[in-house]
């Protein structure tokens, strides 16, 4: 840089001029600018300021016009003009003088001239044309500073049409000996690329040279171009992956000169730029991604959490890891990193953590689970930005089960900040997408006023830009939905789609041919599964749309089919007739359906007074008097409402009588059981052998439930009142569940309702389950000495077998191993609630005694998982009653059995089942099998499903749920390969079964 100065010094004589301003930038109060600024700060009102500035501008105007004003004075005047513009007052008369200053001034004056130009003018300003020659001259100057200034102004703003004029000179600068010039030239070309990409196409090879520049600054600058190029067309630049990885490795390894360090982190800007480039390169490309795993890991490792800048790198790294082809090991680390962000007390990091989470939950919703409590806290955060981000996150994990709670939270938020511009945007998006997901998931069972409200939301509001955008967005998303497979869409959703398309398709007319929407709607009519009601909506939409000749022809086609092919439905005939007439008579149509006025609500005479004459005539003629809808309603069956309750988990356990046939009869049995259940509802069951889960407290939490369960000797929190006569007097007194929720409890409850449907069901997913349960049994070899013997209470082995009398049941055998010496004194039993017990030793292993206990567990209510917990009580002849607790979780799949049915029976059953659910699942791909077969085999293997038949791309599968005596309730699956996924449709007579089963299917397929 020193020779820059030298060269400049040589040019100095021309610069010598009088300058009253003091040196390196300290203000001079005596200057005119100083006076102006001071004058303004002393003012008290806006009005006074206006007067002062007006006066100032007048004086500036006078001075710039005067031929006696020197360039040096002009420079000072220009600074004042800039100041006035900054305060918001136009000084447009000075623009031309700014250009003049840049043209004619010495280096210093030029600098101010260029600055004024770049502040005053826009790329589109015609004045800029006057600047082109000056820029060209300066670019070719021998004075480095002039070249720098020209390059700076060129990359600030330059008229697109004039780029060719200076391009060769700028290009030339890529080989300039000074790195600062090369760097600025690269950035100028980057700017050119952004505004006119085709003009710099021929110099791509020079960009490569810049990438290999020995100066890291020039190389960094070239990455801006590459980021843009690769973003637009990653395929053409895959060969750069190796270089980028190498550069990043060098940077991370600290190979750059020290002055590129920022707070002792090596070139963070460069690192982040490279990470972003790698993300584009590795996206959906396994081979390329594999090249970068190592360096990504290194970046993660090197960026220790200590400074803002390292967080920035970490955040970018995480983003890259989640964008490129996944590698589980890296994902794990990235997830951990996100966790650190979310948990950070620093609010900015928390925000980014939430953002990252929002991004990753789209790939795996379960990643949000560990952070639910933090998320809940963020929901009540004092900072609206955090709140908003949290809502965004929730919005991503919305499913049919938690949608109500989430929407409620969003509305709550909106009520607080309804005047915020960005909020309007949020509302639209949220309402739109949430509704879509609700419609497609909950569809037909939803209350009719939900879609109505949604439509009102769309229709209401001023006709401003956002509303238009929202509507256009709705139209676009619906059109693309209709272009896809429509068979799965619920009828009500189709109705909404038709209405929206009918009403707002005109918004997109310019960009597509008018018939396309019409054709989509017509296709909808042709489909067999479209219900009559939907058809009439569709016809209504078509009526609104048939303005162009193409549409009219289509409409006529449709009408003829309905009118003449003898459709029996009067509503449809009526609508078709309307469509027919309106499509033929454009004038009438314009009057009935004015295109402009559709946003204004028409005036409606709600009393229908114009019909009075008709009514009295009709009554006179003997017609029945009018009955209000309210009266008629009573006869109508209420429509089914969307269930808002989170699915309860109950553990109905059927008891079968048991006998204890131990080698020695147990001297005393005390029995008690802890059953976990989160159901707020009571599960009433019949018979003396059943449980009454009265007042069972919701017990769950991150680490809550099981920990309590394991602390032997304490009464388990969830207690069960036992009506069973088996209850022995020694049973510990039942505790009433503590009333009132703990402070945290409320939040947890919220968490449960928010995160329901993610992973597994609410309470269960919060409980960590150990794979083995340890029991501590007091050894009683000698009466005086008690040793603690750890006995491994193996997880229950669950097998199924057929019993003659009870149909099927699950045999749970717990192998209970204790020391030989104590086995005679200990009597063990199982809590009667899960039903017991055969304590007879099956076989005697040397040194151990083994008792096998059998009892039946069934699932009364389908659930993803149930928790089985119990208290094992035993007593030595002379000792106190002892107790040990155990618990284990049983998943739904333990209760599933194959259901062997014929295809015919399957068909009959399918139609009779009311609860259904549709979802797309991942297809399993193997080398030697069809994806469908492979997927179904995987399901069969993991979930004991029975594959009934596979026909082409469809397969039908059946299973049943062990649910009390008898065959158990069936669940049918209809699977169809659709694109890259498996569209599964589940049906069952049991409400919760499809949902729970679907969860396990998902899980089973992800695991393979």
């Amino acid at each position, binding site marked *: 840089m020193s020779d820059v100065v030298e060269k400049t010094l040589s040019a100095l004589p021309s610069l010598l001029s009088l300058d009253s301003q003091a040196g390196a930038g300290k203000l001079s109060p005596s200057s005119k600018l100083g006076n102006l600024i001071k004058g303004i700060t002393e003012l008290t009102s806006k009005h006074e300021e206006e007067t002062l500035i007006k006066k100032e501008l007048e004086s500036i105007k006078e001075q710039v016009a005067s031929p006696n004003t020197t360039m040096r004075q002009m420079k000072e005047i220009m600074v004042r003009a800039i100041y006035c513009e900054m305060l918001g007052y136009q000084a447009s008369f000075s623009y031309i003088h700014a250009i003049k200053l840049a043209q004619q001034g010495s280096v210093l004056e030029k600098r101010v001239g260029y600055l004024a130009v770049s*502040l005053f003018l826009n790329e589109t300003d015609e004045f800029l044309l006057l600047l082109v020659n000056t820029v060209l001259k300066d670019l070719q100057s021998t004075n480095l500073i002039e070249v720098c200034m020209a390059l700076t102004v060129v990359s600030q703003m330059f008229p697109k049409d004039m780029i060719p004029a200076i391009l060769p000179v700028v290009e030339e600068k890529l080989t300039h000996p000074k790195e600062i010039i090369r760097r600025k030239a690269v950035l100028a070309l980057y700017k050119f690329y952004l505004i006119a990409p085709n003009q710099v196409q021929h110099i791509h090879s020079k960009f490569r040279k810049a990438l290999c520049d020995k100066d890291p600054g020039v190389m960094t600058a070239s990455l*801006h171009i590459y980021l843009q190029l690769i973003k637009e067309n990653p395929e053409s630049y895959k060969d750069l992956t190796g270089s980028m990885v190498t550069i990043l490795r060098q940077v991370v390894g600290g190979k750059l000169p020290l002055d590129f360090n920022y707070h002792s982190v090596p*070139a963070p800007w460069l690192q982040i730029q490279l990470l972003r480039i790698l993300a584009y390169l590795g996206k959906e490309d396994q081979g390329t991604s594999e090249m970068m795993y190592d360096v990504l890991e290194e970046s993660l490792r090197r960026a220790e959490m200590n400074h803002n800048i390292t967080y920035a790198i970490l955040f970018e790294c995480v983003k890259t890891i989640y964008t490129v082809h996944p590698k589980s090991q890296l994902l794990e680390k990235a997830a951990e990193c996100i966790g650190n962000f979310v948990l950070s007390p620093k609010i*900015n990091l928390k925000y980014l953590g939430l953002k990252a989470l929002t991004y990753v939950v789209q790939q795996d919703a379960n990643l949000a689970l560990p952070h639910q409590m933090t998320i809940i806290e963020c929901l009540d955060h004092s900072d609206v930005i955090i709140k908003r981000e949290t809502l965004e996150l929730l919005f991503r994990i919305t499913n049919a089960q938690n949608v109500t709670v989430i929407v409620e939270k969003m509305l709550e938020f909106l009520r607080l900040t309804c005047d915020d511009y960005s909020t309007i945007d949020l509302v639209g998006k949220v309402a739109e997408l949430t509704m879509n997901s609700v419609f497609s998931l909950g569809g037909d069972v939803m209350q009719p006023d939900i879609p109505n409200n949604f439509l009102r939301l769309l229709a209401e509001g001023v006709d401003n830009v956002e509303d238009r955008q929202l509507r256009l967005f709705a139209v676009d998303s619906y059109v693309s939905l209709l272009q896809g497979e429509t068979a799965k869409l619920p009828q009500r959703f189709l109705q909404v789609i038709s209405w929206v398309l009918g009403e707002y398709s005109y918004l997109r007319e310019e960009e597509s041919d008018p018939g396309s929407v019409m054709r989509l709607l017509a296709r909808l009519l042709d489909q067999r599964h479209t219900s009559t009601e939907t058809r009439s909506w569709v016809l209504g939409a078509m009526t609104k749309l048939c303005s162009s000749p193409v549409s009219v022809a289509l409409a006529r086609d449709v009408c003829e089919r309905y009118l003449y092919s003898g459709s029996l439905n009067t509503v449809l005939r009526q609508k078709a007739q309307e469509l027919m007439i309106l499509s033929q008579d454009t004038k009438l149509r314009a009057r009935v359906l004015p295109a402009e006025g559709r946003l204004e609500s028409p005036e409606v005479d709600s009393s229908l007074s114009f019909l009075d004459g008709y009514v009295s005539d009709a009554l006179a003629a003997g017609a029945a008097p009018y009955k209000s809808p309210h009266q008629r309603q009573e006869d109508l069956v209420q429509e089914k409402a969307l269930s808002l309750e989170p699915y309860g988990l109950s553990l109905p356990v059927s008891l079968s009588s048991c006998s204890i046939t131990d080698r020695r009869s147990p001297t005393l049995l005390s029995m008690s059981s802890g059953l976990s259940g989160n159901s707020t509802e009571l599960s009433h069951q019949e018979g003396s052998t059943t449980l009454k889960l009265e007042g069972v407290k919701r017990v769950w939490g991150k680490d809550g439930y099981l920990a309590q369960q394991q602390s032997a000797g304490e009464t388990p929190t969830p207690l069960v009142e036992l009506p069973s006569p088996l209850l022995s007097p020694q049973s510990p007194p039942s505790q009433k569940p503590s009333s009132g929720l703990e402070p945290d409890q409320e939040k947890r409850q919220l968490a449960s309702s928010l995160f329901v449907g993610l992973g597994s069901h609410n309470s269960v997913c919060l409980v960590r389950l150990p794979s083995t349960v340890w029991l501590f049994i007091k050894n009683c070899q000698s009466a005086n000495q008690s040793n603690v013997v750890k006995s491994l209470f193996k997880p229950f082995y669950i097998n199924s077998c057929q019993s003659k009398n009870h149909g099927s049941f699950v045999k749970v055998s717990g192998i209970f191993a204790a020391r030989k010496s104590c086995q005679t004194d200990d009597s063990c039993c199982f809590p009667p609630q899960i039903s017991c017990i055969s304590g007879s030793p099956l076989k005697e292993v040397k040194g151990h005694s083994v008792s096998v206990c059998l009892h039946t567990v069934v699932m009364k209510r389908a659930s993803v998982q149930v928790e089985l917990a119990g208290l094992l009580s035993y007593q030595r002849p002379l000792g106190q009653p002892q107790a040990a607790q155990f618990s284990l979780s049983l998943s739904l799949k333990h209760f599933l059995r194959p259901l062997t049915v014929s295809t015919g029976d399957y068909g009959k059953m399918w139609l009779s089942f009311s609860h259904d659910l549709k979802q797309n699942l991942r297809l399993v791909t193997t080398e030697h099998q069809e994806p469908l077969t492979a997927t179904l085999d995987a399901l069969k293997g993991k979930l004991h499903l029975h594959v009934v038949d596979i026909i082409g791309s469809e397969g039908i599968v059946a299973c049943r749920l062990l649910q009390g005596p008898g065959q158990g309730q069936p669940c049918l699956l209809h699977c169809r390969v659709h694109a890259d996924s498996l569209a599964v449709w589940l049906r069952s007579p049991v409400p919760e079964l499809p949902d729970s089963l679907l969860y396990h299917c998902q899980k089973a397929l992800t695991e393979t």
Partner: protein
Amino acid sequence: MMHFLLLFSRQGKLRLQKWFTPIPEREKKKIVRDMTTMVLGRKPRSCNFLHWKDLKIVYKKYASLYFCCGLDAEENELLALEVLHRYVELLDKYFGNVCELDIIFNFEKAYFILDEFLLGGEVQETSKQVVSRSIEASDMLQEVSERPCSR
């Protein structure tokens, strides 16, 4: 890419504005108004990131001055904070313990420094030394050129 950088005081008075993309005058005024109301309305210790239309807004308060920039959606907010910080460092180095008054009275210098640091909305030079050297080079020129007049 950065779309704009604004410096304004606690009273909402604009101290410096830099627009990296062509924006009509009216829109600029609206942005300035929106930014000052949004940013000044933030409580202390709240997070430094905001949304405005489809831009990310990153702001930071240094003494009595707010630094506020608008970014593309894919930009890294934390990094933008560091860009602001680096700019403050550069100003500090140049003015020596910079204060709002320095920037008010010498805003053109603040612009020059900015032009050496950011170009077309991207970070041009990340090395602090290099940036200050190129600013010094231009200023040396100024000092030398001004020396004769003091005599």
